Structure formats: C-alpha cells, structure tokens
C-alpha cells in the first residue's frame, strides 16, 4: 500500500507564468483518484512533479510504496525503442538498473572475454536475480500474452512503433497493474484503447488495491472508477471527496462560494478606500482625525497586502469552426480493397456529406485505412479513389511531426504549407484565441500540453480548406468542452467526415458505422458496434 502527499507545491513555467501555486492534496492508501481539469491546466505537469521528473519551485512531495508511471504520449516520443526496452523502463528503478548492468556486462564480454569481465557478468546476473529480475521476466511474459497475445520471447525485439496506440497503452497498463509498484500515476490511460479495452481498464481500476491517480476526460470512465476527484484549475488544486456523480454540483457550489467571497472582499475594499478618503479630508482640520486617518491608512494597506481571495476561474472558451466545401457526390470509392495482411477485401462508397465512424478493435487496421485515404504509402491491393474536388485533411495525434516541434504556433501559421495558406500574426492570434490557445501563440509546439496539441491540429484543419476530414481518434486528449466544440464544428461542417473513434459518446453523433471486425471482415452496421473482440493475428 502507498500514498502520495503533495504540500504547498509551486511551479513556474519557463516564460514566467505561474502554472501551479500552493498546491496541496493527499491521495490516501487504496484510493482511486481522478485528476481532471481543462487542457493545459497543468495535470501532466503535476504528475511529473510527483514522479520527480520535474522539481517544483516550492513545496514538497512525499510518497511511499513504489511508483509506477504511465505517460500521456506513450510511444510517440521515443519511437525507435523495442518492446523489451519499453517494459524495462516501466519497471521499478532497481530492476531497471540491474537490467542495464547486465546489458553492459554482455556488451563488455563481446569486447573481451577475460576473467574479470566474466566475473562481472556473473555478478550482474546474480544481482538481476537478487532484485527479482527473473520473476519480473515471468510477469513480462504474462503481460505480453495478455496485451498482444504473444509470449515475451516472441515480441521483445519488436519495435514499439509497430504496435497500435491502443496496444502500447494496454501493454503499459498490464505491466503496471501486475507489477510491484503500489502507487500508479496514469496520464490519460484510456486514450487509444478500444471499447472492450476501456471496459477492461475500468474493471481493473475498480478491483485493484493499489493507490491510483489517473487523468481522464472520459466521463464514462470517471463515473465508474473515481472515488474522489482532484481538480486543477485557476492555478490551484481542490479535492472533491466523493465520486463523479456529485462532482458537477460540488464544483458549481465551490465556484459560487468563491465568487461570493471575492464579492465581499471587493465591497470591503471599496468601503475602506472611501473611509480613507473621507478621513483624509477631515484630517486637514483636525489633528485628532489625522491619527485616525493614519490608522485607517495602515488598515487599508494591510488589507490590500493580504490580497483578494481567488476569484472563480473563468469559463473556458473554445469555438472550433470547420468550413469545408461542396464536392462531387462520390467522395470515396473503394473496390475489393485490402490493406495487406490486415483484413479481407471490402467495397465502400462514401458520399458527400456522410459522417462515417470507423469502429473496431485495436490493431484491426483502422488507422492504416485512414492514412491510405490521406495519401500516405500503405501497402494494399484492390482499388480506391477520391471524387472530384475532394481535398483530404488528415488528423492523427499519434502522427509525429518532428518538423513542428521546435517552431512556435504563430510561426507555423505564418508559413502555411501546401494546401494551407499562411496567415499574418493578427489573424493567427484571433484564430488561436478561438481555440483557447491565445497564451500559447509564441510557445514551441513541443511545449504544448496534449490537448493543446490536439486543438491546434484541429485549427490547422480549419485553415486548410479540406473537404474530406480524416480524423483518427480526434477526441482523445481533448477536454470535455473541446470535444463538445469539435462535435458542434463537425455538425456544421459542409463536407464529408470519416473518423476512427473509440469514444462511445462521440461515435453516436455519426450516421454511418463501418466496423473493422475481429475476423478481418469489414462491414457496415446500422448502430455503433463497440464489442468487436480483440484481433487474433499471428504475428
């Protein structure tokens, strides 16, 4: 069992803004606490402070029980690592160090086979045994079988980037939930998981006796799992001690109370200022009044120095707009299309204005299908084409944009790219403001939070004039309000939408459902299908 205790933590961003101020809360033994807040509020930053990745400018973090951490963007940062390395990195530090020592000793033996090198190797192995390394390897085997359907030895050298986003998440979760660490920090663990995967996660989180602090924007997950809710907003943190059902009311009540306290402070402030002014006049003729005037001045100064209580956080504003444009009736025509090794051949017609949700299990090839339509190189047989005036616009959060990372948003908007005209700073800032990114205009893309990156990518779609939107898991990472705004923008969009999604709520706003079945069959369903079994494929 373990706990996390955060006391008086303060964190300042490189640009000088105070992101978190005087943050204190505790996640007690066995709790399953949700960490919520709008995109960019500081949830990931807070988790990174707790895990020791970042050091706060003030305050402290205490914890016990060994810490397991799952990051928000699994796999997209260090794409060239193997499954083996990925699992090692998720292991407790002692195991990780012992592993690295064995690897180093193995390497040394390739160079020299003398006695000291051999003894060093033997002792590295002994140490590996001492830290429980052999048991860990047995766990890894269980984990890869559960997550990928293959034993550890069969997949350890596989590149992590050959796994789908959902498979990577599942692998990490299996590993952490079965591992020895008693405190788990999970940053958006449900992103990319298919619906059976999400349900599995819900069950595991309910039954685990570990202490869990998890970030999520998924209301179904929050409602089923969280036994308390930690909110990051307005630079601070507050805790709702109950479950999700009572949260909205608690939050409203809190905001009203804050507004009320602030109003009282303002009124009192005004009263004191008036009083000082009056006394100042009277002090001119009466020495007695002069003393009272000075006393009152001191009182006002003290009152102001103590500062006003925090006001209620401003309501978030996000207004996405997607215009599109008229195209030919036939937008996508596919005949006996088969993405090599992923599915059985299928036919598909998508017409102008259709809203097609692509559903199915992790690893079924949905993202590959979208990439093919976006014009990327995807091995396939059969035929496909886009109709007249169809301009695809592709959105994928797992898609790495190495060339964006070290440029600012205003710069990226200024330059434009083929199919997306550049815009001047004024227009760029106005658009960024609508996406709740005004303060981020001069930030590098790499420093944006997950949800801010997602919002920015929708913004690029808005500017691109695409008439066919190809969206891969667009609501993952988006906070609730942004996801709603995206839904509204799609509803008003004059064009065609094909979206891969595991978001149960978002999927229901579509009118066609293309299911990538577990048996390799691609078929259309009249209703969303969420329980296609895991794809069983020999790899």
């Amino acid at each position, binding site marked *: 069992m373990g706990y996390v205790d955060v006391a008086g933590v303060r964190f300042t961003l490189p640009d000088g803004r105070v992101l978190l101020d005087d943050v204190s809360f505790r996640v007690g033994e066995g709790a399953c606490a949700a960490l919520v807040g709008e995109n960019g509020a500081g949830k990931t930053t807070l988790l990174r402070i707790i895990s020791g990745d970042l050091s706060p400018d003030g305050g402290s973090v205490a914890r016990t029980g060994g810490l397991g951490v799952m990051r928000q963007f699994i796999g997209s940062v260090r794409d060239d690592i193997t499954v083996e390395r990925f699992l090692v990195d998720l292991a407790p530090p002692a195991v990780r160090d012992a592993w690295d020592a*064995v690897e180093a000793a*193995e390497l040394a033996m390739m160079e020299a*086979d*003398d*006695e000291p090198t*051999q*003894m060093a*190797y*033997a*002792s590295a*192995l*002994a140490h*590996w*045994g001492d830290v429980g390394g*052999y048991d860990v*390897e*047995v766990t890894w085997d269980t984990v890869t079988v559960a997550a990928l359907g293959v034993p550890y*030895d069969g997949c350890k050298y596989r590149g992590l980037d050959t796994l789908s986003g959902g498979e990577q998440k599942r692998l990490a979760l299996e590993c952490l939930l079965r591992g020895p660490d008693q405190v788990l920090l999970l940053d958006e663990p449900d992103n990319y998981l298919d619906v059976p995967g999400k349900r599995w996660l819900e069950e595991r989180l309910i039954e685990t006796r570990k202490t869990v602090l998890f970030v999520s924007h998924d209301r179904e997950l929050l409602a089923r799992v969280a036994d308390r809710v930690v909110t990051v907003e307005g630079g601070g943190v507050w805790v709702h001690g109950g479950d999700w059902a009572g949260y909205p009311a608690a939050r409203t009540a809190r905001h009203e109370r804050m507004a009320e306290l602030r109003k009282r402070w303002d009124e009192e402030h005004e009263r004191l200022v008036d009083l000082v002014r009056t006394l100042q006049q009277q002090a001119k003729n009466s020495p007695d009044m002069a003393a009272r005037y000075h006393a009152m001045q001191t009182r006002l100064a003290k009152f102001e120095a103590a500062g006003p209580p925090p006001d209620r956080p401003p309501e978030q504003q996000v207004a996405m707009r997607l215009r599109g444009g008229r195209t030919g009736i036939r937008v996508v025509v596919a005949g006996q299309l088969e993405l090599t090794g992923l599915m059985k051949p299928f036919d598909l017609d998508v017409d102008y204005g259709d809203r097609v949700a692509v559903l199915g299990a992790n690893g079924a090839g949905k993202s590959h299908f979208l990439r093919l339509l976006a014009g990327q190189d995807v091995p396939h047989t059969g035929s496909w084409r886009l109709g007249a005036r169809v301009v695809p616009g592709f959105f994928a959060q797992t898609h790495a944009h190495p060339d964006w990372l070290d440029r600012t948003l205003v710069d990226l908007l200024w330059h434009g790219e083929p199919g997306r005209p550049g815009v001047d700073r004024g227009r760029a800032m106005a658009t960024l403001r609508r996406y709740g990114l005004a303060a981020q205009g001069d930030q590098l893309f790499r420093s944006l939070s997950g949800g801010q990156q997602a919002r920015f990518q929708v913004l690029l779609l808005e500017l691109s004039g695409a008439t066919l939107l190809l969206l891969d898991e667009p609501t993952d990472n988006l906070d609730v309000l942004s996801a709603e705004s995206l839904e509204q923008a799609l509803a008003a969009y004059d064009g065609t939408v094909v979206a891969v999604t595991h978001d149960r709520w978002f999927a229901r706003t579509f009118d066609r459902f293309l299911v990538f079945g577990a048996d390799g069959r691609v078929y259309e369903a009249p209703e969303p299908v969420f329980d296609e079994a895991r794809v069983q494929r020999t790899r």
Partner: protein
Amino acid sequence: MPTALARSPHQDASIDLAVSRLVAEFGHRLDQQTVVGVVRSCRQDLSGSPADALPELVERLARYRLTQD
C-alpha cells in the same frame, strides 16, 4: 539472458556436461583430473550466480582458464 531461475538440486549434472566437453577439447594436452579441478574451482568461484545461468558461466570461465594455462 536466461529466462527463469530453476533451483534444481541436480544442477551439477549440467556441469558434468561441461566437463566432458572440455575434456574432449583439452584432453590432448591436459589430463582429466586437471580439467575437473579447474571446473570445480570455477563452480566454486561462481557460487551465488543464478542456477539457470550457472552451466554457461562455469563452462565459459573454465575454458578461459584452461586456455590461459
């Protein structure tokens, strides 16, 4: 890397294999007694190593020491 820690009481059976292989390899210039002695002392020096890895470690070290002789 070995995959499991098997704590077999008969672990020295696999070391016997090492002995016969090394005798075949070095028998032309060393007598069996010497080889067995070297293997034993390697086994001793490597006690504390994971049982599963032991045969490989012992054979490797013994071969190295016999070559140096």
